[in-house]
């Protein structure tokens, strides 16, 4: 099956100048974990996920901690998050992104998402955003396919 049958044809996106605090607001309001970043023509130039924002706000030494449980509260994290809130998303967005075309097969998309540890990825036509594909939607579709009579 082609991915255009499963994809979400939603064009919600950020621009490179969107601030991180605005990006957080849009992510929460739209209840998604990540959004494509597009230019004025709708061309995909990056992708920002909540994971990227968390990573940017964590103190530099965090990666070196074996066990973060002794950190008393999220005070430092909050301070850094507020500090980077005015930064544009272009500063932290992933610029080398995985994207798909509407003609890609669902199997190819599933494998690529798993390999790259991605939950969501943009679908493009001539570089222009036409929708997004979600891992959860693919899972649901694969689950339903097993039950379809054509497999019996």
């Amino acid at each position: 099956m082609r991915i255009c049958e499963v994809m979400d044809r939603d064009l919600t996106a950020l621009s490179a100048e969107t601030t991180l605090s605005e990006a957080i607001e849009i992510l929460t309001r739209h209840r998604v974990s990540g959004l494509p970043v597009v230019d004025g023509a709708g061309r995909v130039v990056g992708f920002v996920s909540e994971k990227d924002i968390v990573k940017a706000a964590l103190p530099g030494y965090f990666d070196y901690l074996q066990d973060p449980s002794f950190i008393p509260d999220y005070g430092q994290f909050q301070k850094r998050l507020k500090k980077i809130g005015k930064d544009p998303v272009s500063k932290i967005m992933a610029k080398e992104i995985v994207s798909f075309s509407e003609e890609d097969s669902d199997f190819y998309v599933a494998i690529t998402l798993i390999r790259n540890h991605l939950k969501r990825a943009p679908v493009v036509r001539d570089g222009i955003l036409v929708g997004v594909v979600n891992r959860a939607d693919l899972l649901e579709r694969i689950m339903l396919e097993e039950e379809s009579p054509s497999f019996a």
Partner: protein
Amino acid sequence: MIVTVTLNPAIDEEYVVPEFRPGGWFRVSRVQRSPGGKGINVSLILKQLGVETAAMGFLAGFSGEYVRDVLRKAQITTNFLHVRGETRTNVYIVDEVGKVETGLAELGPYISEDEIARFLSNYERILKRTELVVLGGSLPPGVPQDFYCELIRLAKQREIPTLIDAAGAPLLAALDEGPTYAKVDQRFMATYEGVALNSLDNLIEAVQRVHSHGVEWVIASYRTYGNVFCTHEGVFLAEFDRKGIVSMFGSGEALIAGLILGGQERMETKDRIVFGMAAALENALHVEKGIRDRAAVERQIPRIRFERLL
């Protein structure tokens, strides 16, 4: 791509309550829930006719999620801005026994200046690959009354045709900007430039005035089952009789969708009007909003009476 703009979408809830009267307590015998708002309806009907559109506007809360979900399942491209609050619900209570319909309409969520600015940047981005903009319905609180003017102006700058289906002050303001198509709902507009829209002659005068303001196609409802069309080829009246009609709910949007399809297929003016009216009639033949399919619309074509008025 065709873009439909619904600034104040809704969930339309239709409750069927036999012998409904105020002050009573009733069991609902049937309820029908569907996403509403003129632009969204046009998107849904065009999809049934096989035409792709992108729907945009503002959505909020659980009701907003529901609207988005239905559009998503219909595989319609969406670019809504999700805002605080709750997308409105319009309640219709239909009493099949007493043949009375009662309606309750909410205002919709408040839209802040920031959100309007964000919407405009999405709108300008999508205009770069748009062939027609359809603007429809009321404005939510916070959105200026002349907002449709701005949307028409931005489309005109890029030579993109626009269609507006609205009423009252937002429509009057928009007409000044000269949209390509305007649908005037006479039920919500008693007068235009001092002319009372109570007779066919007055209605013809009003549509001609709107036409002279630079609107290429003016469509005005005439009585319950008819429309007057003013184009550069003349003034026409198209009507159908009430046989088999269940609910006119959504028929205005079916007419628009039919006219758009006719335009895309470069139909002659008469064929285009008749096809649009057939879509409106097909929509009215069942409780569910929307049309069954193109073949069902074409079956209604012989029922449309078409005449040239001028």
